[in-house]
């Protein structure tokens, strides 16, 4: 009872703290000085048609490197959590998956339906191609490495659900992820050597504005991020499938 009252009091306090923001804010007529600079010089500076990508990959590129690191830490944490085996006093492992996956009457793996199997055959290549499209066009259209990587990982999930692949070769996924991550940092370091600073993409030619091969190294960086995120999340799906 007391807990419920405290919860309600906290909710009311939170709502009251949001109220000044709601009542005082109006649609802004102009953007702040930092955004104005990005909007004015971003296109001519970097040649990227998508300014959000320019901010994510270049102006705040170090944050994105940190973001990739957080994602890696989470994936490593998930692998670690699932590897942990608790033993009781007799030394037998407890808390491991049982037959029937907890609810004893349900089978652990249900065979995929005919619809899912047939549809996945048509959809899988399209899914993969769409993921690659999203991350290679990150500097032109709404999209980028993270979105494309997630689409690729969802294709892998679909393949697992439909039973078209039974096992993900772990070493291959890990090597792919490692190479993409190392490539990202290497391109960042090339920026120091050949251009103005860390993660500066301007050491490659800017190209024609709005073309696929433009904006310097931004598409290369986003493709590497896409490969890294895709393989990382596929690895997470595989770990959850094997151990859970």
């Amino acid at each position, binding site marked *: 009872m007391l807990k419920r009252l405290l919860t309600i009091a906290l*909710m009311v306090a939170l709502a009251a703290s949001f109220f000044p923001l709601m009542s005082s804010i109006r649609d802004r007529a102009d*953007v702040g000085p930092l955004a104005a600079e990005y909007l004015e010089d971003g296109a001519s500076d970097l040649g990227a048609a998508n300014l*959000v990508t320019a901010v994510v990959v270049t102006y705040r590129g170090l944050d994105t490197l940190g973001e990739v690191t957080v994602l890696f830490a989470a994936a490593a944490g998930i692998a670690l959590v699932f590897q942990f085996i608790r033993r009781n006093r007799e030394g037998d492992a*407890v808390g491991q998956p049982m037959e029937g996956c907890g609810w004893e009457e349900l089978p652990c793996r249900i065979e995929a339906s005919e619809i899912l199997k047939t549809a996945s055959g048509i959809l899988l290549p399209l899914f993969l191609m769409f993921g690659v499209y999203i991350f290679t066009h990150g500097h032109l259209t709404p999209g980028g490495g993270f979105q494309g990587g997630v689409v690729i990982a969802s294709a892998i999930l679909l393949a697992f659900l439909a039973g078209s692949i039974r096992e993900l070769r772990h070493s291959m996924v890990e090597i792919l992820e490692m190479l993409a991550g190392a490539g990202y940092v290497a391109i960042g370091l090339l920026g120091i050597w050949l251009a103005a600073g860390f993660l500066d993409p301007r050491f490659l030619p800017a190209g024609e504005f709005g073309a696929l091969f433009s904006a310097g190294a931004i598409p290369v960086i986003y493709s590497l991020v896409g490969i890294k995120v895709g393989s990382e999340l596929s690895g997470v799906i595989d770990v959850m499938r094997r151990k859970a």
Partner: protein
Amino acid sequence: MITQIMIVIASVLMLLGVWGLLSRRHLIKIILGFTLLDTGIHVLLVAIGYRRGGTAPIFDGDLSPAEALARAVDPVPSALVLTAIVIGLAVTALMLSYAVKMFQHKRSLMIDRNKELKW
């Protein structure tokens, strides 16, 4: 006007999320509350970047680089939210793996069954 509407939506989402975190006992529902809170924060950040009559800061046939300063919205909150969504995904995946692990140990996802967490 649009900013205000979006901030109202964001506040409702955040309040629902906090309420879910505090009042639910089922671990999956607590995680859902967390993701609602997360989504509310994303909507709030994007709303703050909006400007009157603004459009996405992506150059194509409708928006030329010359008129970006006059018409495009602030790209910085959008970039921030892009980062926040990915971090939110990673945190949610980690929480769900804890939930799976807890279910394997306790055969239950209700947090009051887990006496070891109480003191």
